[in-house]
Structures are given as structure tokens and as C-alpha cells.
């Protein structure tokens, strides 16, 4: 099916294009016509030129003929003396002026050379007539001899010769002219013929092109129409035969069309619901305001295109559970919505049956298993009578398989609950070292059976995450049991739980044969199990890794594996470390892992306290004398000191004054523990700024409250650090390193750093140089212009810079894992100095 384009992408035919094409054809025709016309004009001009040339010749001939007529008449009279011979002469003399004027006019446009001949001709002709008249006058008055004497003088003949010479010269010119004009005319005619042919060809071509385009346009339209018809027929067929109910909704939320399946589902006819609000059948967009807004249509489409469960109202008033998938259909009159509804009542029914079934499995299957496992367990232990070795083996086999059945039931239930989101997690701050240690302990038996050694060396510091301890033990247990089961006898499985790149990483490394190739990309899917001889003796449920992945994901973590260089596989999962959410003030939970100093002489009481703190993932140092306590305070920073006042043998004030006298003890929160008399009347101890008094015997709850108060006090006393940095990993790592030492807030750019400084009095600043909106050094140079004391600055950047000469800069450190302790040391040093300054030591 062709994807339909949004309306705005379909090009509409444009008027100006049609007009341009319509104008182009007549324009071409007019141009051709004008061109041909100009050719005809030129032909006509050639003809006219020839005509003029002939006229000029005729005019010259006529002039000569007049002169000859005049001469003939004159001679006749001279010879005969008969006056009738004079008539042609008289006529010619009368006409010759007009003929001469005609010649003048016709030659006016000729070349200067010709016009010279003509003007000489005009001067000669009157002179000829004057000479002829002279002869005539002599004949009349003095007779024929006198006339003959004048003629014999030759003047007349000479004039006539001159005239002939001029005429001959003019004729030469005229002939040349005529030949040129005729040749031009022939050339023009030829050109005109070609132009005519070309013009006709062009017109024919244009006619063809026009015909072609008209045909093509009509054909495209026909094809498009056919396609549209086919498309619409296909769509109609899909629309009408779809099992799912499809409803087309216009931008205001009214129903435009619905298919037969929708009619069946909702029990309404399509015509009946036409133009009715979609909420009549299913309220897909509850709330107030325009339909598309209520539906959650944003610039990136629908916020929630699939809604798994909505009640639909049918025509007969029943409610049917439906799921709906919403699609967008941009049309010219706005965004339409295609809603595809599926009846999920059957599925809901199946869900209920499945729930019931699972509950049955859970109870009815486990109850007999309880009896079987219980009986076998008691038998195997040989509690009541000793069994033969063979019987014992059989009982062990039966027990192992019954246990396996229990695991399968448990795994099936877990997988189901995780899949349906029904698994409940009891989230709390937990130390992953405890989780791994717990799993190692739980799997000790299995490891022993398989002859595999488990090695876990917990690191010195707690690795705190926010999670469900039991579930995480299950994850480690799954990884561990796989590692054990696949390891060859005598090998070792190594576990670790350490902070890694701002997260907690738990790793289980084995020396087994590795993950088979065909399993690698689906090992975390359900029922992905290695097959073959190597695994025949170590069956599982095929759900363990899938369950582990789901549990880890629920904790915001991820799970994976890699091959070890020296063989075997390491499965790892990473979880977010607890209490290192950047930018938040360090909370009570975030202070887990900090140390407390216990000053006690009663070893059992001190032991109880140590355990109390350890169970909450807090560390303690126990000291028994005042010098030891002072040395400890000097060496490390404690969250609080817990002091048995009796220890000081009634001289508690002296003890506390000593502690308050050293710089690191000045602000140390102290919890005092004393017998009831002292607590009810603390006397002069009250002046020593003690967080809380606790009476013996110690109650867990009160101790918890006192420690919380001490932490709050310590947090109040912690410096506020602003870390300006755009790399989330660096922020994470730094915040982790500084937790318990300072309240760390962060700004990821200069603008938010400035805003933070406007609102808070910052004690120390850690500044990166390369920030998205400029250089951190700019921020540093602005500091002195701000109100209040200027905080010391630590430049903590990947790039080396010449920042050390900026006055406010306390230290310049290059970002790396190794420089982190330097950063912490620098901050401790600054804090100690600030403490001294504050207390005016």
C-alpha cells in the first residue's frame, strides 16, 4: 500500500504555469508571423527598386526620343521648307521640359556620380534646342543655304554627341544598378522561401507539442485517477474487512467514518454516529479544551499513541474494555485522527484466568512440594534411621529434582510477575557488598557440590545502591549458580562489587567454556538455554537470566557479559549508585558509608554500637582514650562522635573541651551517652554544644534519631560547592567523591551557574573551562564583582590553561581518575582554612 503523503506535500496545479504555457504558443506564432512579414516587405522593396530602375531607363529613353523627334522634324523643314515638318519639333520642344523634370525626379535619389551626368544632360538638352531653333530661324529668313551652313558648322552634331555620351554613361550606371537590384531580389526571394519553410515547420512542431502535452496531461490524469480509484478500492477493502474497529475522527473530535467492525463492536450504525463526538462511544481524550490538545498532540506527534485499556459504551448500554491505537492523518482541513480499537474483553478474561492459574500453581503446586521436599530432606539427613548408601543416593536424586521443580515454579511466577509489572520491590539503601556476600553464602553448597571455589573480597568502602536486597541477591545468585554449574571442577569463580564510572558494578567471572555463539544475542531472553553434552548434567529453568535482566532493569541498571582474555565469561550488571544524584543536597541516605568515632571503654557496649552502625552501612572507629580520640579526629573527618560520659569518670566537660579545642573537633557533632541522672541534669555539659543526650540502656530508635540529628548538623556545617561542568559522568564521580564532605550542587552551563550564584552563597567553586555557552574562566573573572565574599575556585578541566595566575583560582587540576584524590584534598584544605577563618583562630 502506498503511503499517502500529507496534504501539504501534494503539489496543486499552478495557474501561472498554465497561463505561461498558454501565452508561449501564440507568442511563438506571432514572432514567426512578424519574421515572415518582414521578409515579404523586403521582397516588395526589391520589386519596387527594379521598377524604379526601369522607370528611370524609360524616362531617359523618352527624353532621347523627344530630342530625336525634334531633330527629325527640324531636318524635314530645313530640307523641304514645308512647315508641316515642324509639328513634331514643336511638340517635342513643348514636352521636353516635362520629360527633363521627370528624369530629374527619378534620379534624385541616385548616386552623386549619376546625378552629375543627369545635370550635365539637363544643361545640354536646352542648348540642343537653342541650336536647332537657330537653324530653323536661318532657313526661314535666309534660306536653305544659310541653314545648311550652320548645320555644317557641326555645333548641333557635337551637342547631340555630348547628349549621347551622357545618356550612355547614365545607362551604364543604370544597368549596373539594375543587375544589383535584381540579384538582391533573387537572394531575398530565396531567403523568404526558406523563412517560410522554417516558419511552417515551427508552427507544425508547436502544434505537435501542444497536442502531445494535452494528450500527456489527459493520460496522467487518467492514470492518477485509476490509481486513486484502485488505492481507494484497496483502502476500502482493508477498512471494511479489518477485524479491528476503525474510526476516523475530525480535528474537533467528531466521528467522520467508521468501518463495519466498529459498527459491530459499538453496536451503532455508521450513519447514526456520523458527526457525533467520539466520547459518545469511547472517551479517548478526557479533560477540557480543544480535542487535539486533550488528546496530547504535540509537535512530535501524539504523546500516547497507544492506550491499552479504555471502557467503550455500546449501543445497548454495555461497557466493553477496548485498547486503542491512534494514528495521525494530516488533511487539508486539519489533523484527523485514525483510531483503531480492539476488543480486549477476551484478553481481560484470559488475564483473570491466568492470574487464577498462577495463584493455583503458587499454592496447589507448592503445597505437595512442601511435603515431598520435607520428607526427603528428613530422610536424607538420616534423622530417623540410617539409610544404605544406595537409598541415600536415590533420596538425594529425588530431593534435588523436587527442589528443581520448586525453582521452576518460583522462576515461572517471578518471570510472570516481572513481565506483568506485578513484581513488588522493597526498595531501600543497601550495600552491594552485603548482597554479593549473601549470594556467595547461599551458593556455598552448590559450589561445594561442583568442586568450585568462590572468591569475593569486598572493597573497604560501602557500595550503596537503592534496591531490593532479596531481588538483587536473586540476580547475583542466578549469575553465580550459572558460573558454578558451567565451571570445570577445581576452578574458581571471582566476584566483585565496586563503584565503576559513577555506578555500582557487580561482576561474576568464571573460567567455564564461554557462551556458545548461537546463544550470545539471546542469552537474556526467556528459555534461552545452552544445549549439548556439556550442559546435560546442569539443567536450569531457562528463566534465570531473563529474570535477572528484568530485575536489574527495574533498578535502572543494565546487565551484560564479556569474554575474559584468559578464557571464561564475566557477567556484570551496573546499578546507579545511591545518593549521588547530582545537584541535590546530600541527604541522610547519601551519608551512608561515612565514619563515626566511638569513645568507649566498655567493650561489649562499643561492640553493640559498632554493629548498629555497620547494619546501617556506616563505619565506626572505636577508641578508648582521649589522646587516641584526638589522633583519630586529626586523621579523618567523622560525621559524629559518640561518647560514653561515664568513661570520662565524671570529667566529661574536660574531655569535650579538649575535643573542641582542636580545629577538626570544633564543629564535630557529639552524641553523649550517660546514665539517667546525668541525662536529666546535664549541668555544665549543656554549654558544650551536644547534639543529643541518650540514657542507658540504649534504644535503637533514639540512637537513630540522634544520628539523624548529628548528620543534619554536619550537613549544615558542610560547605556548599558549586560544580560548573557539562559532563554528567564527571559530575557523578565528583559528587560521589565529595559526598559527606560537602553539599554539591551543579550547573551545566555559565547561565545556570550565574543564576545559582545570584541565589546562593557558595563556599567553594569547581569550574570546568570548556562549557557549552562560553569559557569557565569568564565566570571566574566575574566573581570579584559579585556581592559578598568571593569563593575560592578550583579549575577542574580536561584542558590545560593559563588559569593559575587568575587571582581567585586556588588550584588547577587536570581531569582524570588520578586527580580526583587531589581534588578532594584541595577541598579539605580549603575547608580547614575556611573553618579557621570563621572561628578566628
Amino acid at each position, binding site marked *: 500500500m502506498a503511503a499517502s503523503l500529507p496534504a501539504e506535500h501534494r503539489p496543486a496545479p499552478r495557474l501561472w504555469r498554465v497561463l505561461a504555457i498558454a501565452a508561449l504558443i501564440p507568442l511563438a506564432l506571432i514572432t514567426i508571423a512578424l519574421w515572415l512579414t518582414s521578409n515579404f516587405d523586403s521582397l516588395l522593396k526589391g520589386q519596387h527598386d527594379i521598377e524604379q530602375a526601369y522607370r528611370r531607363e524609360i524616362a531617359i529613353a523618352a527624353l532621347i526620343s523627344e530630342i530625336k523627334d525634334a531633330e527629325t522634324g527640324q531636318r524635314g523643314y530645313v530640307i523641304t521648307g514645308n512647315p508641316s515638318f515642324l509639328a513634331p519639333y514643336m511638340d517635342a520642344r513643348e514636352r521636353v521640359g516635362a520629360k527633363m523634370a521627370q528624369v530629374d525626379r527619378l534620379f534624385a535619389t541616385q548616386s552623386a556620380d549619376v546625378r552629375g551626368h543627369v545635370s550635365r544632360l539637363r544643361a545640354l538638352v536646352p542648348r540642343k534646342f537653342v541650336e536647332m531653333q537657330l537653324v530653323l530661324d536661318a532657313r526661314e529668313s535666309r534660306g536653305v543655304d544659310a541653314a545648311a551652313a550652320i548645320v555644317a558648322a557641326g555645333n548641333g552634331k557635337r551637342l547631340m554627341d555630348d547628349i549621347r555620351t551622357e545618356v550612355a554613361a547614365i545607362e551604364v550606371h543604370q544597368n549596373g544598378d539594375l543587375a544589383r537590384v535584381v540579384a538582391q531580389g533573387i537572394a531575398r526571394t530565396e531567403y523568404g522561401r526558406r523563412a517560410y519553410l522554417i516558419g511552417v515547420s515551427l508552427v507544425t512542431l508547436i502544434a505537435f507539442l501542444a497536442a502531445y502535452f494535452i494528450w500527456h496531461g489527459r493520460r496522467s490524469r487518467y492514470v492518477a485517477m485509476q490509481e486513486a480509484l484502485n488505492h481507494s478500492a484497496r483502502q476500502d477493502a482493508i477498512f471494511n474487512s479489518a477485524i479491528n474497529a476503525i474510526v476516523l475522527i475530525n480535528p474537533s473530535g467528531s466521528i467522520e467514518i467508521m468501518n463495519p467492525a466498529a459498527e459491530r463492536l459499538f453496536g451503532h450504525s455508521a450513519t447514526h454516529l456520523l458527526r457525533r463526538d467520539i466520547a459518545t462511544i469511547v472517551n479517548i481524550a478526557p479533560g477540557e479544551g480543544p480535542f487535539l490538545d486533550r488528546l496530547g498532540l504535540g509537535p512530535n506527534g501524539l504523546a500516547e499513541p497507544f492506550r491499552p485499556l479504555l471502557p467503550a459504551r455500546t449501543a445497548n448500554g454495555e461497557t466493553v474494555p477496548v485498547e486503542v491505537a491512534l494514528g495521525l492523518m494530516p488533511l487539508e482541513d486539519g489533523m484527523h485522527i485514525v483510531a483503531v480499537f480492539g476488543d480486549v474483553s477476551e484478553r481481560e478474561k484470559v488475564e483473570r484466568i491466568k492470574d487464577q492459574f498462577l*495463584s493455583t500453581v*503458587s*499454592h496447589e503446586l*507448592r*503445597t*505437595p*512440594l*512442601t*511435603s515431598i*521436599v*520435607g*520428607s526427603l*530432606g*528428613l530422610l536424607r*539427613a538420616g*534423622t*530417623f534411621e540410617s539409610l544404605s548408601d544406595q537409598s541415600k543416593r536415590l533420596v538425594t536424586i529425588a530431593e534435588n529434582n523436587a527442589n528443581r521443580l*520448586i525453582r521452576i515454579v518460583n522462576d515461572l511466577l517471578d518471570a510472570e510477575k516481572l513481565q506483568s509489572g506485578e513484581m*513488588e520491590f*522493597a526498595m531501600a539503601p543497601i550495600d552491594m557488598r552485603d548482597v554479593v556476600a549473601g549470594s556467595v553464602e547461599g551458593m556455598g553448597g552448590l559450589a561445594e557440590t561442583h568442586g568450585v571455589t568462590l572468591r569475593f573480597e569486598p572493597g573497604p568502602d560501602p557500595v550503596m545502591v537503592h534496591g531490593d536486597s532479596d531481588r538483587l541477591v536473586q540476580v547475583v545468585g542466578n549469575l553465580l549458580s550459572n558460573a558454578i554449574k558451567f565451571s570445570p571442577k577445581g576452578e574458581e569463580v571471582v566476584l566483585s562489587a565496586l563503584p565503576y564510572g559513577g555506578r555500582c558494578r557487580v561482576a561474576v567471572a568464571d573460567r567455564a567454556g564461554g557462551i556458545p555463539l548461537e546463544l550470545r544475542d539471546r542469552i537474556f531472553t526467556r528459555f534461552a538455554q545452552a544445549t549439548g553434552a556439556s550442559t546435560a548434567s546442569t539443567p536450569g529453568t531457562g528463566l534465570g537470566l531473563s529474570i535477572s535482566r528484568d530485575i536489574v532493569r527495574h533498578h535502572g541498571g543494565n546487565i551484560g557479559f564479556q569474554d575474559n582474555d584468559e578464557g571464561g565469561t564475566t557477567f556484570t550488571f551496573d546499578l546507579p549508585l545511591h545518593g549521588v544524584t547530582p545537584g541535590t543536597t546530600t541527604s541522610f541516605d547519601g551519608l551512608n558509608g561515612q565514619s563515626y568515632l566511638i569513645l568507649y571503654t566498655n567493650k561489649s557496649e562499643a561492640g553493640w554500637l559498632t554493629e548498629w552502625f555497620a547494619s546501617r552501612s556506616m563505619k565506626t572507629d572505636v577508641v578508648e582514650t582521649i589522646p587516641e580520640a584526638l589522633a583519630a579526629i586529626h586523621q579523618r573527618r567523622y560525621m559524629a562522635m559518640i561518647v560514653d560520659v561515664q568513661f570520662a569518670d565524671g570529667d566529661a566537660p574536660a574531655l569535650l573541651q579538649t575535643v573542641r579545642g582542636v580545629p577538626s573537633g570544633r564543629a564535630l557533632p557529639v552524641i553523649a551517652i550517660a546514665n539517667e541522672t546525668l541525662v536529666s541534669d546535664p549541668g555544665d555539659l549543656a554549654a558544650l554544644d551536644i547534639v543529643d543526650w541518650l540514657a542507658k540502656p540504649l534504644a535503637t530508635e533514639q540512637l537513630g534519631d540522634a544520628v539523624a540529628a548529628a548528620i543534619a548538623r554536619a550537613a549544615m556545617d558542610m560547605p556548599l560547592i558549586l560544580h560548573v561542568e557539562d559532563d554528567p559522568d564527571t559530575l557523578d564521580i565528583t559528587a560521589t567523591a565529595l559526598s559527606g564532605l560537602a553539599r554539591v550542587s551543579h550547573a551545566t552551563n555559565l547561565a545556570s551557574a550565574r543564576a545559582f550564584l545570584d541565589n546562593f552563597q557558595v563556599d567553594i567553586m569547581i569550574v570546568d573551562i570548556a562549557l557549552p555557552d562560553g569559557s569557565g574562566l569568564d565566570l571566574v573573572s566575574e566573581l570579584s564583582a559579585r556581592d559578598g565574599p568571593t569563593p575560592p575556585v578550583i579549575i577542574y578541566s580536561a584542558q590545560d590553561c593559563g588559569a593559575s595566575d587568575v587571582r581567585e583560582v586556588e588550584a588547577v587540576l587536570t581531569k582524570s581518575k588520578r586527580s580526583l584524590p587531589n581534588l578532594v584534598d584541595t577541598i579539605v584544605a580549603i575547608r580547614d582554612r575556611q573553618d579557621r577563618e570563621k572561628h578566628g583562630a
Partner: protein
Amino acid sequence: MVRDVLNILYVDDEADIRTIVELSLGLDPDLIVKVADSGMEAMEVLGRDGWLPDLMLIDVMMPGMTGMELLATLRQRPDTAAIPALFCTASARSTEVQRYIDAGAIGVVSKPFDPLRLAGLVRRHYEGVKG
């Protein structure tokens, strides 16, 4: 360390499991177990001839009177109101565990259990309350 002798009442409709629990708890010679096959029988056993247990272990899913109903009833009886009770169940979902604790149980033993460890588990629960 001297261990107290503890009287325990176990209530379960499943005869097989009653037997196994009796045997399992019997591995600790200082645990003295009486059993009842229903809530009604438990009500009768309790207080008969002045006998009251130190701890009750009650199956949750029983026909007639459920474990929850039984405990609620016993909490109304002055002589049994203060006897610590553990629930025993084959469907130990975490929400349900909380429900059982809220109903007044001191803990939950989930089925299937390890018969060799049951006595220790029960004892630890008991000591958690008394110690």
C-alpha cells in the same frame, strides 16, 4: 547457652505437612509441638487443660476458617491475645507478607521450607520478639 523449652501449636489442614512440620520441629528436642487440623480445632486445643503455647505457627489457606481469621479471633481471646504467631504460607508475595505482619503476625515462614532448618527459623523468630 541454655535454650528455653518452647511449646508450639501448628495449625494446618494438610495432614502430610502437619507430619513433616512435627518431625522437623521435633529435631530440636526443646520444641514441643501440638497440631490442629483447622481453626476450630485450634480454638479447642488452646486453653484445654490450661495448655497454652509459647508460639503459634498457622497455615494461611485453610478451608472454613482461614489463618487470618483464626488469628483475628485469637487476638480477641484474653488468654491467647498475646501469644506470638507465625504464618505459614505457600504464596508468600511481598505485599501479602506485609498484610500478615499488619494482621499481628511476627513473621512468615514460606512453603516449601527446609525441614532441617525449620526449627532454627522458628526459634529465631521467637527470640526476635522475646529477646
